[in-house]
């Protein structure tokens, strides 16, 4: 019985876990350019993968509650061209992400700029984002 309950919880957890939408859509279909945001928090996980990577970040809201944000970024190769390496992501790192909020998911964002605790700043915007000056010339 204990095994059955465990399996049921496992399946339920898998069904309920938040999965980012696949990235093959227009930027404006998934993100709201009228809702720019700045997230300060702790990066807990990164999926360094094609065609877009994902940063998972714990961010405290104004009431102090921790929200688990999912942030879409550019492809790894593009971020590498702007200097960001996967080795830059270390345990417990705090960071700031500037980007735009998702239209349907309130804790989904598209990242444009990643600023690490040491002050280094990286362009992480995916193709099709707004012309907001985030991309370095």
């Amino acid at each position, binding site marked *: 019985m204990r095994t059955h309950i465990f399996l049921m919880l496992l399946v339920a957890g898998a069904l309920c876990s938040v999965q980012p939408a696949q990235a093959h859509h227009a930027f404006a*279909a998934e993100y709201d350019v009228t809702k720019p945001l700045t997230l300060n928090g702790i990066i807990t996980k990164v999926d360094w993968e*094609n065609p877009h990577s994902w940063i998972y970040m714990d961010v405290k809201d104004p009431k102090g509650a921790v929200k688990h944000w999912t942030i879409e970024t550019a492809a790894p190769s593009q971020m590498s061209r702007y200097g960001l390496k996967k080795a830059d992501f270390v345990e417990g790192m705090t960071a700031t992400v500037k980007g735009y909020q998702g239209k349907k998911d309130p804790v989904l964002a598209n990242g444009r700029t990643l600023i690490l605790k040491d002050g280094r700043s990286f362009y992480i915007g995916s193709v*099709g984002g707004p012309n907001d000056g985030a991309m370095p010339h």
Partner: protein
Amino acid sequence: MNSVIDPNVDVVWNAVRTVIDHGKPIEHAPANDEEWAAVRHSALTVAEGANLLMMPGRAVAPPGAGSLSPGIELAPDQVRALIDKNPSGWNQFARSLQESLLPAIDAIDKKDSQALFEAGDKIDEVCESCHQIFWYPAPGALASSAPAR
């Protein structure tokens, strides 16, 4: 696109990736002949799927399908109209998609996970470039090129 190319190119893209969990990198790549063969199957399916894209007059979506994001992403009949207006441009993107798969297939045959990872970027470039013309063109381009609905 949704049934053949998209799910199979996801297999190619996701075959090699790194999950960095609390600073600890966990590398993922095909680990045996069977897994490499599965990725190769998907890569070839995408490349051959591009031939289907080039079939004249072929429906771009099942009957009744609409835009997933009206006003931002075109409906299938609008996409079809753009293809009919510029078939050579469409076919060039389809051939570019095929060509973008070649480095991936070469990497798979060599079981070179890093090369496969890097090949994924080029595939995405082709996809995005085509999407920006035939699926979600800029608003100005949409107004001038999309047919009346």
